């Protein structure tokens, strides 16, 4: 368990460092705001139906041994 926390801490430290550094740099966005019409299309939403997504993740968590890592998550009994 300690190893997991340590590796997780490293990931958090790395990413937060990048976040802090972003305030010191001036990276030019390579996709301009006016070029994001496709990304703004509803079919590109990573989770357009949060209630349904949560329900399905709950179904899988009840029937498989794995959990997490899928961005949005869900819960509930649903049982044996």
């Amino acid at each position, binding site marked *: 368990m300690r190893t997991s*926390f340590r590796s997780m801490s490293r990931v958090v430290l790395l990413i937060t460092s990048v976040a802090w550094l972003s305030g010191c740099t001036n990276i030019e966005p390579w996709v301009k705001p006016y070029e994001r019409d496709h*990304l703004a*299309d509803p079919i590109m939403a990573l989770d357009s139906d949060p209630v349904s997504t949560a329900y399905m993740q709950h179904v899988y968590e009840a029937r498989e041994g794995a959990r997490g890592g899928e961005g949005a998550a869900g819960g509930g009994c649903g*049982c*044996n």
Partner: protein
Amino acid sequence: MNFKRTFALLLFGLLTGPAVAGVLPEDRSDVLYHLYVGGGVEIDGPSILVRKQLGNSVSVVGNYYVDYVSSASIDVVTTASPYTEERRQYSLGIDYLRGNTTMRANYISSTESDFDSTTYSFSVSQDMFGDLTTLTLGYAYGEDIVGRSDDPTFRRDNRRQQYSVGLTQILTRNLIAALNVETATDEGFLNNPYRSVRYFDPDVASGYSFEPELYPHTRTSNAVGLRARYFLPYRAAVEVEYRYFIDTWDIQGNTASLTYIHPWGPFTFTIKGRYHDQTGAHFYRDLFPRAQATNFRGRDKELSELTSYTLKLKVSYQFIDVNKGWSFFKKGSITASIDMLSIDYHDFSDLTAGAPVGSEPLYHLDANIFQVFVSFWY
């Protein structure tokens, strides 16, 4: 019951939504009916979500979810009696937007006749690099109380913690990707108080007897998920997703899916294939050689070696056009879907077949999952 202790911890994802900061989530309401049928189990109920913005920087969300369970599953018919159960879950959340930073706090409460769960979670999202990158850090803490319906004095506790990091990245004008890393730890009474393991017993006619499960008191898991969605030239989208999972119970899992989304007038069609494969927990056995053969023992088929396949078909009809609106609604849609789930268990025998001990056929599950929901944006 092992899944019960993870659900509330993970549900905060529903309330927080995907890792997109700088803009508050849209005001919307969803009313969903779900139905699961398969393996002698029927579960149905509603889920209602309401999200509303208060001013320019605060959004609140509430969710009410119910499972009505009627179970005569393979576990139940071989070691217990069919039962009915009801679970109710309430959750509340608040999002606070300040500049490019969004802070979220959530509270979730779930109750059953023999299981109570409470979860608190907090996350921070930050937009960076011209809003091309969104970083999310999350933490959740949960407590469970495990009971037994046949023993009012039985009470065991669990504590759960979850740490997550999410990175959503716009890669090109047609491609967006998300990376999620999650560590979860459980501590306490982690096995099902009702479930039994099977051991070889030459003194009985069936050749085997049962004794209660006994799980380790801690579990830590790590999961890494990567997904990418691409906008196709003729206005359709394709998404690929992969997740690697590993935990201290020696379960390793690989999950992959492929989704295709195709709009056609007011309709949107979705087809998705999902594959999951996992190894079994180190203390899992389908048949132990004798009573109390190992320090820890379990026969929960969800912890066994298995492979699952799902085919999803979904259609959505937008009955309030986003360009016209209706009354104070900006948009409205109705969606129906079916998920056809099939699970091959590689080390879990079907005891209902009545075969001699040790030579029973492996169990196989087929289930259909139906959803119908109405959504309004305002």
